[in-house]
């Protein structure tokens, strides 16, 4: 019965979303306070009913209600309760329910934390969110209903969940990504409202920034978790594969990062208005596109065959209306968003513009690499795949100038900056970075040019960030005092940039100095790899609760000293008849040692795959720092100050810039 209740309340949520899409917007048109005031309660109602529906489906999973076809195909009575709760988003129907649930959360958050915004703005923003929500509710209700019953013939037990799924990294990854994807809907709605309104001012940018930051932080963590999970669970030592699923989440991240920086200019200098709006539309559109690519099977599954394409068609319809409509509105109205301030060719504005150009170029590269195989095939030219080297090559071209702008940008002033004045700082920064980079790279045999460049760039960001703090706030005692006066959003920027440098350092060193070796080893044999001796001490058999397997014992020595004992496993899951390689990792600050077990060879030898991966952990540590920086920025007082002045008219807020 609970499932029917969930279904019913989802339908109610849909009706609320439709009302939310219509009444407040109409109210703005007629200047009717009462109709506009409906927006907040409707948003709350939509959230409540979606929460009930989501709760009902979760309960169906927890209580093993296999009469629901969705539960039957995604759970099993033997599954632990916490995995049953997370299995809710294990399949198509449930993940879309999670999608609309997250959207309703963001909507209700906007309704709750938007006291500072003038009522017509709130009404418009909530109405646009309602419109997006309504289309997705309709999709869930008509094309992908998770509450469908398998009556009268239902299975006694469900299919088991894939063992790969039963993992904490995989549990947190999808909700984080969705929080990020869907979070961009808020700034999207703000942008559309500004286009309709025809006005976009500093106050608008100040509303938009915390929402953008929040979405960006979630997306950053989501992508990081996915990468980390791939590294330790897939057993092949890779942390980024440029596959369509990853690219789908990386594109909105790149656009969102550009948007954050463009918003800063719009807030402080009232510039780049139409560009900011376009990025806001792009970030959400790319999120929708990502959802479509992953969920429709157009690109993801090589094995998918032409089946009933209605679901994909439905999502494509939503995409066409949302993205097409907003871009049309942009084409018609963006010319009206005038940017008035002026600036010189060398100034912080131009540096940030350059940063935006590079981030957009990177987005386009990823988009091209992701969609080209589809286009190629549709043009009848045959199936192709675009390998990781393409992306790596393009990103190595982009990274140099991008980092130069990143290092110099924060040092320079708004409006006009003399390059001569910065010469000293640039030369010092580059020199320190070059020396540091040489010292780091010296430790590895066969210095790689790109690794040298990468570490140099990463160190330069670090040095110039310190230079920026020092130059702005003096050094010594007085400097320490003024450090405390730096705003949280300034610290956010510092953390974000340092985090990027840390990630860049990790990528540069691990991509070029990782050593990998497939070896054939007899028991007791030793192999040398990058200064480590790997000793293979045989294979023992393994009996897990639902799998059998083999475990290779590997001891690692450095300079005769025993430093690690690793057990690399190969498991065979009997119920699912599924093979899994469980690599063993000895993690460290400057390097990971990684062993995966291959197959047994004819004369009793075994195939083993050994890796030494320097600085690989820095990649995820940097991402965490970036996310932390985003959170710091969100805590900045000026976003809350604006909220305190509940009834202040917009014009008054417009003048203030912090």
């Amino acid at each position, binding site marked *: 019965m609970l499932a029917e209740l969930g279904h019913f309340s989802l339908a109610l949520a849909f009706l609320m979303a439709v009302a939310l899409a219509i009444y407040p917007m109409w109210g703005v048109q007629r200047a009717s306070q009462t109709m506009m005031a409906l927006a907040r309660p409707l948003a709350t109602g939509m959230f409540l009913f979606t929460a009930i529906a989501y709760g009902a489906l979760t309960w169906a999973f927890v209580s093993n209600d296999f009469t629901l076809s969705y539960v039957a195909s995604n759970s099993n009575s033997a599954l632990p309760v916490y995995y049953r709760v997370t299995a809710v988003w294990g399949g198509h129907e449930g993940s879309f329910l999670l999608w609309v649930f997250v959207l309703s959360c963001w909507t209700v958050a906007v309704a709750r934390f938007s006291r500072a915004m003038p009522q017509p703005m709130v009404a418009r923003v909530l109405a646009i969110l309602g419109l997006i929500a309504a289309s997705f509710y309709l999709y869930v209700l008509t094309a992908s209903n998770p509450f469908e019953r398998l009556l009268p013939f239902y299975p006694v037990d469900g299919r088991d969940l894939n063992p790969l799924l039963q993992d904490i990294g995989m549990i947190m990854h999808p909700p984080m990504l969705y929080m990020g994807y869907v979070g961009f809907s808020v700034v999207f709605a703000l942008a559309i409202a500004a286009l309709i309104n025809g006005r976009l001012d500093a106050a608008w940018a100040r509303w938009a920034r915390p929402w953008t930051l929040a979405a960006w932080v979630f997306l950053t963590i989501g992508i990081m978790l996915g990468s980390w999970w791939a590294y330790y669970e897939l057993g092949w030592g890779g942390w980024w594969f440029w596959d369509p699923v990853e690219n789908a989440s990386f594109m909105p991240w790149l656009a969102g990062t550009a948007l954050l920086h463009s918003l800063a200019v719009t807030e402080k200098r009232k510039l780049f208005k*139409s560009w900011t709006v*376009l990025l806001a*539309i*792009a970030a959400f*559109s790319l999120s929708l*596109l990502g959802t*479509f690519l992953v969920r*429709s099977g*157009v*690109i993801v*599954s*090589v*094995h*998918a*065959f*032409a*089946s*009933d*394409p209605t679901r*994909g*068609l439905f999502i*494509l319809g939503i*995409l*066409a209306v949302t*993205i*097409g409509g907003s*871009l*049309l509105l*942009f*084409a018609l109205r*963006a*010319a009206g968003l005038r940017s008035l301030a002026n600036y010189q060719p060398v100034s912080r504005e131009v540096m940030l513009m350059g940063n935006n150009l590079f981030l957009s170029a990177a987005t386009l590269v990823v988009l091209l690499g992701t*969609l080209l195989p*589809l*286009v190629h*095939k*549709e043009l009848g030219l045959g*199936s192709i795949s675009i390998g990781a080297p393409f992306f790596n090559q393009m990103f190595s071209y982009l990274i140099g100038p991008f980092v130069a702008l990143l290092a110099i940008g924060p040092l320079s002033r708004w409006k006009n900056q003399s390059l001569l004045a910065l010469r000293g700082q640039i030369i010092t920064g580059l020199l320190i970075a070059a020396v540091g980079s040489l010292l780091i790279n010296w430790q590895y045999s066969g210095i790689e040019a790109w690794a040298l460049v990468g570490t140099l760039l990463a160190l330069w960001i670090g040095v110039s960030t310190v230079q920026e703090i020092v130059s702005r706030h003096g050094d010594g005692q007085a400097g320490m005092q003024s450090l405390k006066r730096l705003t949280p959003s300034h610290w956010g920027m510092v953390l974000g940039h340092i985090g990027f440098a840390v990630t860049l350092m990790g990528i540069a060193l691990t991509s070029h100095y990782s050593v990998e070796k497939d070896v054939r080893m007899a028991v007791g044999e030793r192999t040398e790899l990058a200064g480590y001796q790997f000793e293979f001490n045989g294979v023992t058999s393994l009996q897990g609760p639902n799998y*059998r397997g*083999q475990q290779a014992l590997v001891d690692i020595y450095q300079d005769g000293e025993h430093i690690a004992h690793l057990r690399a496993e*190969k498991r*065979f899951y009997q119920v699912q*008849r599924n*093979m899994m390689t469980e690599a063993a990792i000895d993690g460290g600050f400057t390097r990971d040692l990684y062993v995966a077990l291959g*197959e*047994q060879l004819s004369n009793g030898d075994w195939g083993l795959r050994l890796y030494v991966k320097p600085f690989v952990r820095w990649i995820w540590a940097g991402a965490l720092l970036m996310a932390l920086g985003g959170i710091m920025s969100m805590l900045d007082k000026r976003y809350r100050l604006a909220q305190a002045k509940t009834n202040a008219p917009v014009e008054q807020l417009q003048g203030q810039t912090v």
Partner: protein
Amino acid sequence: MKSRLILVLPLLIFFGISIFLFSGLFSDPTYKNQVQVSRDIPEFALADLMQPQVIYDQSVFSGEVTLLNVWGVWCVTCDVELPFLSQLREQGVRIVGLYLPESVDADFGTKPLAQLQREVTAKLQRLGNPYQFNILDADRQYSIDLGVTGAPETYLVDKKGVIRMHLIGDINPQNWQTQIAPLYQELLAE
């Protein structure tokens, strides 16, 4: 005017992309979903899945129009198509199964035949049994001769034992109605 053009550009790019997304939805990634072919069914001598002492050869296809359906209990899509195939059997369509044993790691051995038979029986009892009988392609050699690329796949064989159509993917009411049934009726009349 020029700046207007730049503002329209994103819309145009999106429009271009969505055309490909749209056609991608309907296109067939395997680029040969249904292929009308015409070649004799390769020779074989393989045992029955349930009664290993019974050996079949290509003569089982002569005299009747047959659907040769490649499947396995490990194949999830096969589960989806079994009920519909069973309906077809009730309508008098002759369906023979070519059982493709699942791929398992040799380190852990293949499934014993008895266990396989139990699993097949259980599955067919649950989802319906469309098959006259099942041929076991134990070492998958015959699948290679046939050009099987995966499961489920189906071959439409005419009364003279000639393969007339190779279908990759499941048989569902839609593609049965539109693509397979017309040829099937034609072959019946031959």
